[in-house]
């Protein structure tokens, strides 16, 4: 009984934020001279209005689940990591290269190798931020954001240079994967298997945090570092481990984009999933199960974008305005909720 009420209480600010976002977006659309009500209806329709819309939404949700975990897991250890985009890009690149170099091996081995390479690369990249925090006291939020830019620059440098497939003329890319190594769709849906793995990753992260010694230690460190130190926990190392783990998830997002969507590593990997993950993780209060729902919601906003453009001729930036509004109002309501007395 109590648990249901708690769950309902925690949903309240999210619902309020969605309502306020819808209102503000309608105002914005109307002020720009477009029909507001129709725009809102189109968002709903484009995200969840049809089987096709759902498939589009879920395809976008898959990588966001991984990138949101890149925020959520370190957040449980008390760190705000916002550089998932860089780990996604480099993880995707590492996966693409393993896929090309191992092209003649068995499919399972290729995919496992790609996933491992992506995991390790993403983990090491975000691990740099964790290490800087642990060893040097550098603010991990700033360092992870700056590392994201560096990561994307390194990605571009490699893809446009040493690792470029000479056959890719207009859009610099790595050599394409063998089609047999591509990840297919879930039977009966136009959605690739990445979605299932994303949900599985969220479940695994939840289980890890809830039911393992490691997860409990992470929660103590994030909840009160002083108490963690007093009980002798290695606070710095746990924070480092949480950041490596989170970065690994972002790397996997890149691997699935390569193996299920793009077929190679190119600039299309950096579609902003890393940043959308931040939004989702905060909306879910860094709870891995909440991440699943949040990713579907944000995926839906992305999916409705093309419908808005086609039907109302709204500019491309409208979707970003919508996301931005949602993020700001989520944070605002979260703060208000906390100030309004948690024990009420």
């Amino acid at each position, binding site marked *: 009984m109590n648990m249901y009420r708690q769950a309902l209480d925690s949903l309240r600010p999210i619902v309020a934020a969605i309502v306020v976002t819808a209102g503000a977006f309608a105002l914005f659309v109307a002020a720009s001279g477009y029909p507001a009500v129709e725009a809102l209806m189109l968002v709903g329709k484009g995200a969840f209005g049809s089987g096709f819309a759902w498939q589009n939404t879920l395809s976008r949700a898959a990588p966001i689940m991984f990138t949101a975990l890149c925020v959520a897991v370190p957040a449980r250890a008390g760190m705000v990591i916002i550089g998932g985009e860089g780990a996604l890009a480099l993880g995707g690149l590492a996966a693409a290269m393993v896929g090309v170099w191992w092209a003649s091996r068995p499919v399972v081995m290729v995919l496992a190798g790609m996933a491992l390479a992506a995991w390790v690369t993403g983990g090491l990249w975000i691990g740099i931020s964790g290490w800087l925090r642990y060893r040097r006291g550098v603010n991990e939020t700033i360092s992870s954001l700056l590392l994201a830019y560096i990561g994307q620059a390194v990605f571009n440098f490699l893809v446009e240079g040493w690792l470029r497939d000479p056959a890719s003329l207009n859009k610099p890319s790595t050599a394409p994967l063998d089609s047999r190594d591509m990840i297919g769709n879930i039977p009966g849906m136009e959605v690739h298997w990445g979605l299932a793995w994303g949900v599985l990753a969220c479940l695994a992260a939840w289980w890890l945090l809830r039911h393992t*010694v*490691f997860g409990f*230690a992470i929660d*103590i460190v994030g*909840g*009160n570092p002083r*108490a963690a130190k007093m*009980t002798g926990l*290695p606070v710095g190392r746990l924070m480092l481990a949480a950041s490596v783990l989170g970065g690994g998830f972002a790397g996997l997002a890149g691997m699935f984009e390569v193996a299920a969507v793009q077929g190679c590593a190119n600039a299309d990997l950096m579609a902003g999933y890393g940043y959308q993950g931040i939004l989702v993780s905060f909306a879910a209060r860094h709870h891995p199960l909440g991440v699943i729902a949040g990713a579907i919601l944000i995926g839906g906003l992305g999916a409705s974008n093309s419908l808005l453009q086609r039907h109302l001729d709204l500019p491309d930036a409208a979707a970003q305005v919508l996301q931005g509004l949602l993020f700001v109002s989520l944070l605002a309501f979260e703060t208000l909720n906390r100030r309004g007395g948690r024990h009420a």
Partner: protein
Amino acid sequence: MDGRLPDHAASLMPDGPLSIQAIEISKRFGDIHALDQVSLQVDAASFHCLLGENGAGKSTLVKCLAGFYRQDGGSFLLAGREQDIRSPRDAHKLGIGMVYQHFTVASGMTVAENLMLARDDLPWLLNLAREHQALQSFMADMSFRLDLSARVADLSAGEKQKLEILKQLYQKRRLLILDEPTSVLTPAEADEVLGMLHQLTRQRKLTVLMITHKFREVTAYADAVTVLRRGRLAGTGRLPETGTDEMASMMMGNPENRPVQTGPERTIPAKAQSMNLAAERLIIRGLHGSNDRGVPAVTDLDLVVRSGEMIGVAGVSGNGQKELVEILLGQRDASAGEILVDGLPYRATRHEMRLHGVYSLPEEPLRNACVSSMTVAENMALRNFDQVPVTAGWKTGWFLSRRRMVARSRSLIAEFGVRPPDPMLPIDGLSGGNVQRAVLARELGQPVNLLIVANPVFGLDFAAAAAIHQRLQMAREAGAAILLVSEDLDELLALTDRLVVMSAGRIVHAVATADADPVAIGHHMAGGHA
């Protein structure tokens, strides 16, 4: 000076230094009498010191005078006239200013800008040239100066405290209240600042009322002293007639009047005999450590605690006790020195804590020892969530059994009487006493060899305090070595076997509690020498 500087609303009052008379001031916070009919007389142009232990009511009294609190009973006469001081603004209008222990200056701005900021009547538009002129003529009148264009960040601590005082003088304060103004200063800086204040009182420009713990400052500068003890007036005296011994005995109360120690029968003789044989459980050698601001707080500290022995660390708060405890707990790094537990180097790792049975009861348990977002059961598992039985069965080592966690916490809750007895409640929903009980249950829920305790009953009611004291005594009887850091000397006298006094980051006095003389201890706490 500039006619637009603070116009005193109470302009009927004569200029020059204020005299104060506080008549039977009382103030309660809930059930606690912070002040119980305290009277105080401060002559105009005098340098008056207010002495007392922590919690004696000194700060409460001056805060009533400065308008931060409103007294429940009694009245203030300023320059012989009764005044109703309802807010700090009222106090400012009467010419009362306050300087705190910690700086309230904007460090990125210049001295001149800080002086302007301090004005209550700063206009919306500043005529900078005119303000600077006013400031310069103000500075020219002062016997000590600061460079008006200097950035505050570049000033030394002593200069910052001078700036605080200049801020008050610039607003033509006639009574300056200072709350331990020298605690962040070096002795030389303190002498400079206090000397300057003393001079201002001699020039009949100012009355000074200063809270201090240091006898040295009282004997060097004060004209008169008022001593508070437990919210009551303990005595007054004029300087230099009143000696430091007299002040110390006023501060600590008559030895006969101190509460007799309660609790289980003590076995001191046997203990004393075995003392030399008992193992040296904790050895601290040449320990150094800094506080949050990077200033040395613990300097060259040596201490030994033996098993079956409770050692009390007395001292005025802010003399390095907090940092010492944090270092022992692993919350702060030592900058030099060594800590040995059972003869082995100790770095407060989880493994070492378990190996040597080191547990602790820090002050402010919610801040130091609990995760407030977690439940009571989870908080009680902080020590052993990675151990059998919480990870027993196939789950050993890697996985939690939340069922066992809750079951174990239920039995601890019953054993230690935590209320309400619900392991699933968030810990920050419990009362202070019950949070402390929950932590105590966790820390004493297994055999303990060394226990670090800091202000364990601060803010708790009598029953909760007695229960916790009893647990500490039981742990000692069971052979644990206990280090008890407390601001409450009565607590230390009642519980401990040996007492050390910490002052300015080092141990300055050590004595067997049975032979302890509160007056001598008060002397050492106040940085004097007996």
